């Protein structure tokens, strides 16, 4: 059973790991450990994102699969209470 909020949690955490590692790599571009960490988080995010979008509608405006584009404007939005789950 695919759990929507668990998938969103994985997407948020892996995306944040990428955000933080991206800034670190901006000032340490030759750090291999950071680069490997970034790539690992990117794989985790990609897998969770693909599963989430296929089952619960789009998260990214330019997702490779926008066949469910009609769900883009469907609530709740992330800033609305409960929209982050």
């Amino acid at each position, binding site marked *: 059973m695919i759990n929507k909020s668990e998938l969103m949690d994985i997407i*948020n955490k892996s995306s944040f790991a990428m955000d933080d590692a991206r800034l670190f790599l901006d000032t340490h571009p030759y750090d291999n450990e950071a680069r490997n960490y970034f790539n690992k988080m990117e794989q985790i995010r990609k897998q969770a994102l693909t599963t989430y979008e296929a089952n619960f509608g789009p998260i990214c405006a330019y997702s490779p699969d926008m066949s469910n584009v009609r769900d883009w404007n469907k609530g709740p939005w992330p800033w609305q209470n409960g929209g982050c789950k």
Partner: protein
Amino acid sequence: MWSYEKRLQFPVNIKNKDPRLARIIISQYGGPDGEMGASMRYLSQKFAFKNPRVAGILNDVGTEELAHLEMVGAIVHQLTANLTPEEIKAGGFEQYYVDHTLGIWPQAAGGVPFNACEFQSKGDPITDLFENMAAEQKARTTYDNILRMIKDPDVAAPIKFLRQREIVHFQRFGEALRMVQDELDSKNFYAMNPDFDCSNCFK
């Protein structure tokens, strides 16, 4: 350009309304050390930076600040969503309410509107990076001040996240300043604008 993702950088799910707290937290939306100033500061400064790696840091941090702006807006919105007129009065929210109802508008806690004079874009990388480091610390101090007023863990968690990001950004800007200075003749660090008076300041 930017591309929206339908999620917050860190989730905001607040169960209990608190208009009094919202009046304080709105300062990090449009106040002197808020996320609107932060995002506009870095995303405006980037154009004049000649070192592409340093310009990229401004772009990436500025992009993250836009996500923080959305988070602070979400916190204020959820703290004030569906307030009744009685709750507005009891929570001291009537002065904000009369102009904005329950909409989100960039202002400081004291009611002063957002103003671009809260940040600079000086066209000098050393000047701008020193401003950015100070800005991150001022925002960190503001988040510390806010945290002392919070008991609700639903509100404290995203505010603590935002506070931690100020510290990381300070570190990255410090490294960016070093990247700029590493290209310069140390005698001239603070004597001229390396991206304007270029002839004799580089090594």
